[in-house]
């Protein structure tokens, strides 16, 4: 294993594996972008090329933006995701602070329950949540899209781990300086845990922007639909088998996430590893 030759071999092998897995993930996206700029005739041609013989992008993207209320879906997505992430932080940060830094009876039990909630897949809860939403009469509103996600066990867990690494002395100093427990959370803990907050925010926005399952159950009104659900409706009603505009719409939906991730990549990585190694 230690000879340079075998080391070179293992490096080649390693890169092969990385290339293949990377390709498996990337090729559908590349294909999507490629299809979104092709005319209908070229889409089902047996030979594959990235660039179309006839550039059809403008037509596809125009149809995607005009034939279905795609901007409306995107706005819905922005609103719902913003509300979710803001409310999640508003709920998770104080909860995580209490679990990390305060002493009260039943703390460990509560934390164990958070961990259990972390294991449960969200789909398991969709029927009870649907009935609950029906009972309080919020189905088919923005509230129905937002309320199941407001309490995030993952957020509580992530913030707690990060808050644990902040020394107690800082909290003691803040108490002596006259801060209340809630202002300690917002003025000291959250700013100090900013990398974790940003990483969590990205996680939350990505998963809820892409979420299809719950919106499918919760809303019927097209004016409330988030992007993935909207695309599905678009496919059924408008496009039929017209894949060009459909892929253009998909590209438009995915683009904001990719841009956001690339610009916040540094915090994202720092936030996820920050809590792991003290």
């Amino acid at each position, binding site marked *: 294993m230690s000879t340079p030759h075998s080391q070179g071999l293992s490096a080649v092998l390693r890169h092969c594996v990385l290339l293949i897995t990377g390709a498996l993930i990337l090729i559908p996206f590349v294909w999507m972008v490629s299809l979104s700029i092709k005319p209908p005739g070229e889409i089902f041609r047996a030979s594959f090329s990235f660039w179309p013989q006839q550039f059809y992008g403008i037509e596809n993207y125009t149809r995607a933006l005009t034939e279905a209320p795609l901007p409306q879906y995107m706005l819905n997505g922005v609103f719902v995701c913003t509300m979710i992430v803001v409310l999640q932080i508003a709920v998770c940060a104080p909860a995580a602070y209490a679990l990390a830094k305060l002493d009260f009876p039943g703390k460990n039990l509560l934390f164990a329950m958070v961990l259990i909630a972390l294991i449960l897949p969200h789909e398991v809860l969709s029927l009870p949540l649907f009935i609950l939403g029906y009972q309080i009469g919020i189905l088919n509103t923005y509230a129905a899209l937002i309320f199941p996600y407001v309490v995030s066990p993952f957020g509580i867990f992530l913030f707690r781990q990060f808050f644990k690494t902040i*020394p107690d*002395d*800082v909290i*003691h*100093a*803040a*108490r*002596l*300086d*006259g*801060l209340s427990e809630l*202002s300690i959370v917002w003025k*000291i803990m959250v*700013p*100090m845990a*900013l990398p974790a907050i940003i990483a969590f925010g990205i996680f939350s926005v990505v998963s809820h922007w892409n979420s299809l399952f719950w919106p499918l159950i919760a809303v019927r009104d097209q004016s409330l639909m988030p992007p993935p659900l909207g695309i599905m409706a678009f496919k059924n009603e408008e496009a039929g088998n017209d894949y060009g505009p459909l892929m253009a719409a998909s590209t438009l939906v995915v683009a904001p996430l990719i841009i956001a991730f690339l610009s916040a990549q540094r915090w994202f990585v720092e936030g996820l590893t920050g809590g792991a190694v003290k």
Partner: protein
Amino acid sequence: MSAITIEKIEKSFCATPVLREVSLSIADGEFLTLLGPSGCGKSTLLRILAGLEVQTGGSVSIGDRVVDGVRPKRRDVAMVFQSYALYPHMTVAQNMALPLRMRRLSSWQRLPLLGRFMPGTNAVVEEIDKVVMRTAKALGIGHLLARKPGQLSGGQRQRVAVGRAMVREPAVFLMDEPLSNLDAKLRVQMRAEIKELHHRLGVTFVYVTHDQSEAMTMSDRVAVMLDGELLQVAQPQEIYDDPDDRRVAEFIGSPKINMLDARLREGGLADTAGTSFSIAGNIGPGTALTLGIRPEAFHLVDAGGRNVLTGAVRLVEHMGSDLYVHLDVPGTDHPVVARLLAERAPQIATGQTLHLGVKPERLLLFSADGKRLRHDHHRNATVLRIKERVQ
């Protein structure tokens, strides 16, 4: 006004007692040091004073007010932490201004953007800025106000931490080992600066440290703590010269005090290490004693005899002004350490036999359970006497 009275404070963590009935009075404007090894409960006591921890039993008063159950911010105390505990996301100016903002601005006025438009905010903020600027200049950190703690050196951070405590003009300063993260040279300098600060402010200081040189040089009085108990509270010199307890004598002083186990026989003589020391007073023969001899209590003599220890030189440490001579004395477990004048150095070589005399009045006597035995001149008797603690 800001005298502190601590009455029978007890504290346990999960049935483990950390403080046992600690009682202590601190006068207004006094500089009192809580001195003890790590884990003796001194920091816990300080945190109880600050209100950051709740005692299991007992009571604390600051000024004339019983403060049990009073929140830290209402106690009028400020604290400097060992880790400085600065807020890393705020500038030095923001760090120092925070305690004042919390006190002088209403919660509406503190709102991030709107606060500025609330009536009266600007005047208060300007006033706070002035106080922060003045304090920072007094501490020599006026040029650092725009920096964040991460960009400062250890000494500068320390000053910011002191500044944050100072701006509030608290009645009591609590300091929890504020110098232990600094390098040796800076520590000596900051020691003098804190002492000077105490003179200038004239308020009560309670200072926690495990470093005896800090305790001895800075304090009006030192309270020696061990295993959650207060062993002795006295002026630094008295703690050194006249310890109440064997543990205090052993903790204070460097090099450490020499402890020799002895047994008393007829004629007021205590036998130990191949020699005997004359003990005045009327302790019964057969009593087991411990003789404490400070290293500097020895002087060189020519020959062995009563009140003289004889042994072979094991090691000579040259300290510049002094000479630490380690002596193997037959009948003792540890080498005896003597502190001699450096000019004796040419006369002393390793392996050589040395005779060290001790004047009887410089012997510190301890009973078998570690309590101090003092000589009572009025009755010509050595009695076990624990001094009344100054309450």
